[in-house]
């Protein structure tokens, strides 16, 4: 208790300096938290992926499609519970800035495979009934203000023309990590239109989604699917949904790595600031430390005082920084709209923030502490800061 009181009094001696240092730590811890959250958002798709789903695509690349006839052959493979398919649509809503993913999905089966998309049953029925119907996620509703019954038109970039849809339902995520920024519509609508406009492109599927009876058999079933279509015109590549999503992340890995490096840089910057504060503080108080020593207090006593002060300042700043992380991340996520479908602060981020502030406090006190502990009483009393 006595130590505690002394530490607080000491920290408050230079109110301006302590205040500035705390402010610096708040900014740094906040920035660190936001950057880690951005990195987590990058992996959100893979994080939310189910273990019991496989994705089959053309082995050349996603740009190439697969024939519709593969569906029935995949269904016959042992270990496959259900199959659905989807096409990436890549349409533009009003202007190119409004980016959100759109998928043409086989409505009858797709949502059985994705129980994390929660749709009220009556809306689901309406969606199934309307060939031009669309299901939109909660995040899109919040961003673009879609309502049930609204007409939405998308300009196709892959499939030319203007495509008209009617919003028939709004889905929510079963969990916080579920991506609710997607726009689903009926694959049949796409296919029927293509049959008329570009018959060569009809009856083709972007990806097949396979639901497994048991996740233990993922590797075995994936191999079986690819073997079925080996040496055909459209060879397949089947992987777990997680691996499929991680594939996207790894393509932009350089950016993720850069953000990670920068997030540690900010900690180094604040470490320099904090170390500077402590170095100045200790230098100014050398005469006091010498006095304490002369009175019979040992180096351990000084160590506790200096480390305590450093940790108190870092801890106080970190507490404010962490508390601010939540509202700021929330605002930030909203401002970015659908760029990051899921933007939540993870518990790991908080632990890392705490660890970072602790290490800033400890490392900043290290050199000054050694100096104070080593100083000879005579020299200390002579020192003038």
């Amino acid at each position: 208790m006595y130590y505690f009181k002394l530490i607080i009094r000491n920290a408050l001696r230079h109110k301006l300096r302590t205040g500035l240092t705390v402010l610096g730590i708040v900014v740094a811890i906040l920035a660190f938290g936001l950057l880690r959250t951005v990195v987590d958002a990058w992996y959100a798709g893979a994080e939310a992926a189910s273990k019991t789903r496989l994705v089959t695509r053309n082995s050349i690349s996603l740009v190439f499609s697969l024939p519709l006839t593969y569906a029935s052959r995949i269904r016959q493979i042992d270990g496959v519970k259900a199959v659905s398919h989807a096409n990436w649509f890549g349409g533009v809503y009003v202007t190119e800035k409004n980016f959100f993913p759109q998928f043409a999905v086989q409505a009858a089966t797709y949502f059985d495979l994705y129980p994390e998309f929660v749709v009220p049953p009556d809306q689901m029925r309406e969606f199934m009934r309307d060939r031009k119907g669309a299901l939109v996620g909660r995040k899109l509703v919040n961003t673009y203000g879609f309502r049930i019954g609204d007409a939405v038109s998308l300009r196709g970039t892959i499939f030319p023309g203007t495509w008209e849809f009617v919003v028939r339902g709004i889905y929510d995520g079963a969990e916080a990590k579920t991506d609710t920024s997607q726009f689903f519509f009926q694959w049949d609508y796409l296919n029927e239109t293509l049959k008329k406009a570009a018959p060569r492109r009809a009856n083709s599927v972007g990806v097949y989604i396979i639901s497994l009876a048991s996740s233990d058999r993922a590797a075995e079933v994936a191999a079986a699917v690819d073997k079925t279509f080996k040496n055909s015109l459209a060879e397949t590549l089947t992987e777990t949904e997680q691996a499929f999503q991680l594939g996207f992340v790894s393509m932009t890995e350089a950016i993720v790595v850069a953000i990670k490096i920068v997030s540690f840089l900010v900690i180094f910057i604040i470490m320099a600031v904090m170390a500077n504060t402590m170095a100045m503080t200790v230098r100014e108080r050398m005469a006091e430390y010498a006095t304490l020593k002369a009175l019979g207090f040992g180096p351990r006593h000084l160590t506790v005082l200096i480390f305590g002060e450093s940790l108190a300042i870092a801890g106080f700043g970190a507490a404010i920084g962490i508390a601010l992380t939540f509202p700021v991340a929330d605002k930030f996520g909203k401002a970015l709209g659908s760029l990051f479908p899921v933007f939540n602060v993870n518990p790991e981020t908080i632990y890392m923030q705490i660890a970072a502030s602790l290490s800033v406090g400890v490392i900043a006190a290290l050199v000054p502490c050694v100096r104070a502990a080593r100083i000879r009483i005579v020299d200390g009393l002579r020192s003038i800061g």
Partner: protein
Amino acid sequence: MKIPFSYTFRNLWARKLTTLLTAGGMALVVFVFATVLMLEEGLRKTLVETGSYDNVVLIRRSAQTEVQSAIDRAQAALIESQPEVAFGADGERMVSKETVVLVNLNKRDSEKPTNVMIRGVGPHGLALRPQVHIVEGRMFRPGASEIVAGRNAAERFKGAGIGETLWFGQREWRVVGTFDAGNSGFDSEIWGDAEQLMQAFRRSIYSVLVLKLSDPARFPELKARLESDQRLTVEAKRETAFYADQSEVLANFIRYLGLTLSIIFSVGAVIGAMITMYASVASRTAEIGTLRALGFRQRSVLAAFLLEAVLLGLVGGCAGLFLASFMQLFTISTMNWQSFSELAFSFTLTPAITVKTLAFALVMGVVGGFLPAIRAARLSIIDALRAA
């Protein structure tokens, strides 16, 4: 009268640890700032140099990228016969009818798959891009299952090196050469014969047409005529503009992320400078009083302390810039969201970036030093002298 410069300099020198820590913090911020600008410049340079001003790219209307685009043979023939198209040395029109697809290849170092652009070019494909030169091996032979790889592609992707083979479209493709495209986007691509690639991918249509204008000034005419032609559904862009548009999203992302970070980080560094300067003022109160008593004006004291802060910023700025200049040795390779394919580009330091970075460092110094300098200048002589 001015306070001598050596006074300011010695003050920084006397508190080496503090100066070092403050300038070190600033150097890190400056490093981030400079790196971001260098990255953006590198990306811009790579994509601007990919195109040439007198070339025109034609893609399907609203397709945005080459991969999404489709132009059938009838349309291609119509475009080819336009009067603005230049003639080559062989008397043929300078048009390359190209097919562009993405193929998944694994990276050499991590085995991770990535999208690589495979471009099937026509006979004039090379002549239309004067910056592309074969540096090793030879060009592919038309009609053969042969390909040539860009410098970055050959280095990064498994099977894309000279003498190696790639398997796609039910065929084995032999890499017979490596080309250098002068650090442009083509360096990340693999080229082959358009007709061969179309057969392999079972395509009957081209993706894009690239043509050379006989006179670059006639572009608006050509664009207006082609885009209003009822038989065509194409969009014409100058090649330079086309590639600049391709990088817009990535460039904006780098710019906004980088600037936001720089601003947030600079708050930290400015606070660091402020703490140092306030301490510097506080520990020198008696000195300042003496200076004032000797007849130095408030203005001079203000200037001396501001100069000290600026010097601190300059040291940090130079150190940060020095560190950042080493980043030029690195090449970044990432997926361009718009074209959905891998693109390699390097950090590029230009004189403009050097000036901007140093200005940024100086501003940080001034902002951090301003309030403490005012405090120093405002000290009353008697109180200051008594402080000792």
